[in-house]
């Protein structure tokens, strides 16, 4: 599974431009599902039949990134953010465009106490002129962090584990499930990082009876961290609340019951910020009882996100348990 995660996280596919990661996922799951299709926004929807109840399981394919807004005469690029990019974290980092072009983030000289904002940053792709830059990129080109996957043993580090880890979990669960008891709509969504957009149109088309997102969540287990009762390696997190969702009691009880029954380590999550695809799914049409299986993840939205493979395994088992439990 680590190899799959390495493969998925090494792709640059920011929100709205998910073609490359979609192609890889499609190939990975083709033989495990009954039907695959894409919708107008680019969501990849894989169906596996097994019962009357429709369960939408969602993991988002997109990652945060940047988009070029200006190319100056010297060939430096200016850019806007795609999703939640913190300017403080960019200086000295590298970016990779979807066509493979590499660049380095630089910063203008700041006045004393001046706030670092995105407009003070630029991207240097080694071009000597605007003309040379334009041979590689254009206004509207997108890039992501460029950082290698590292295997630290139980724990792994990579960019875009948010939410390629969710994609990997969903792929793995699809491969492991032997007796699906529901109609499974495993949806690899687009544009989550810019406002849960893909999940919204996907759910509208699918009309599911239940929605489960698989996504990362923060932790509070690092030195002087913001308070959060979530720890790496303490199991899959069952979300109770974030800014986009208060988990439907039925779904919370379902996930908790399955974790207890199958001896899957779990922890409860009350996140005072953030949102996941389930935020969009549960408000679809006449309402969809929804919840989230979260994977604790340190250093969110940085080039070095870290998860624990034991939590990943717990999340896979919990997802498989949902797939193999007859819901009404």
């Amino acid at each position, binding site marked *: 599974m680590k190899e799959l995660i390495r493969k998925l996280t090494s792709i640059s596919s920011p929100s709205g431009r998910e073609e490359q990661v979609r192609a890889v996922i499609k190939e990975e799951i083709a033989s495990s599902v009954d039907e695959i299709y894409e919708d107008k926004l680019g969501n990849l929807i894989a169906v596996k039949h097994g019962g009357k109840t429709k369960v939408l399981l969602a993991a988002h394919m997109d990652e945060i990134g940047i988009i070029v807004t200006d190319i100056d005469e010297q060939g430096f690029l200016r850019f806007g953010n795609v999703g939640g990019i913190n300017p403080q974290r960019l200086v000295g980092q590298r970016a990779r465009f979807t066509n493979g072009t590499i660049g380095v983030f630089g910063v203008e000289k700041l006045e004393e106490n001046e706030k670092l904002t995105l407009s003070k940053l630029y991207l240097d792709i080694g071009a000597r002129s605007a003309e040379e830059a334009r041979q590689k990129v254009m206004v509207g080109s997108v890039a992501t962090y460029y950082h290698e996957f590292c295997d630290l043993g139980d724990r792994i580090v990579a960019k875009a584990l948010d939410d390629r880890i969710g994609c990997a979990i969903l792929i793995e669960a699809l491969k492991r499930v032997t007796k699906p008891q529901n109609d499974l709509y495993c949806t690899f969504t687009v544009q989550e990082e810019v406002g849960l957009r893909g999940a919204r149109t996907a759910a509208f088309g699918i009309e599911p009876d239940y929605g489960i997102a698989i996504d990362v969540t923060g932790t509070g287990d690092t030195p002087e961290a913001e308070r959060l009762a979530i720890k790496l390696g303490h199991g899959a997190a069952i979300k*109770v609340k974030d800014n986009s969702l208060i988990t439907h009691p039925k779904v919370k009880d379902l996930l908790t019951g399955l974790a207890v029954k199958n001896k899957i380590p779990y922890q409860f*999550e*009350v996140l005072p910020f953030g949102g996941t695809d389930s935020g969009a799914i549960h*408000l679809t049409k*006449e*309402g969809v009882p929804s919840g989230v299986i979260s994977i604790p993840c340190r250093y969110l939205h940085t080039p070095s996100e870290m998860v624990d493979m034991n939590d990943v395994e717990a999340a896979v088992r919990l997802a498989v348990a949902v797939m193999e439990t007859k819901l009404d």
Partner: protein
Amino acid sequence: MNLETLLTELSNAAGISGREDRAAQIITDLFTQGEGVQWITDFSRDRLGNIILRKQGQGPHPPRLMLAAHLDEIGLIVSEIDQGFLRFSTVGGIDQRVLLGQEVIVHGRENLPGIIGAKPPHLQEPEEKNKAVKLQDLMIDLGLPEEKVRALVQIGDPVTFRRDCCALKNGLYTGKAMDDRAGVVAMVDCLRRLKDLHHQAEVAAVVTVQEELGVRGAFVSSYGLNPDLGIALDVTHGEMPGLTEYEAFKLGKGPVIVTGPQVHPQIFKTLKEAAEAANIKYQVEAEVTPRGTDAYALQIARAGVATGLVSIPLRYMHTAVETVSLKDLTETSRLLAEFIMRIDRAFVEGLKCY
């Protein structure tokens, strides 16, 4: 049905956003076993928990009206068990300054009384006194040993204010969840009035959930019902020192009929006409943002719904001492009934004629 009793019971019932079941039970009992059975033709609950109380209209194609008043209240949710004390997060917009020294109920395996403690003034540094307390520095004390707390409470358990409803002078009532249980009571009272009236419109009175988290219940219920027109019933700010005349309304002087982008001009006008014809005193509020009430969701359901908004003046919103006038509730219910009597096919067809 006694309105004071219903208001008291509802205000006392626990029901933070997304966990409205105990408050919902009161409405369910009234309309499935109580007096309310005779006032409606159909009772249902949708998948997110909205309660839909329907009363049929007359004629072959009755206009379809949706009323919405939200059941959920603001509150707290347990986020961490820290050496037997509970850390918490907020549900809905709570001013952290009002939390200090409040009594709460933690709804764990059983209802547990708790206290949000305050550091005594003696132990505070002089500069601390001048600052508002931060949410992360507050904790709930259950007075129980840690093992007992862990056995009874889980992360994610809801917490409500422990504050029973009580009558003040001049027909004012104060409680923890008048926003928007007052609106629910007015809507229920309107259904009671409609029992003996012959109205053309089919009425779907929706007791909505999760309003305080972004009018979520109203989004799905208005999509599901797909009405011709809708009226949201909520509360607005009551007059108090520090608020100007145009941003706060008088308690006991009747319902507030709202105009603004979320309100259809014809519905605004007809609400005023209905009030005038029935000698109902009313106040008018202009609201520039469409957000903040169920009307926000109602108006943009599917291909659009002609929407109105009626508010009940309420003092000290989003605190444990929300205060309303019972008279405003009955006058609001009367206004709604009068408005409903004016809805016919022609009125509804006119709503698309701009």
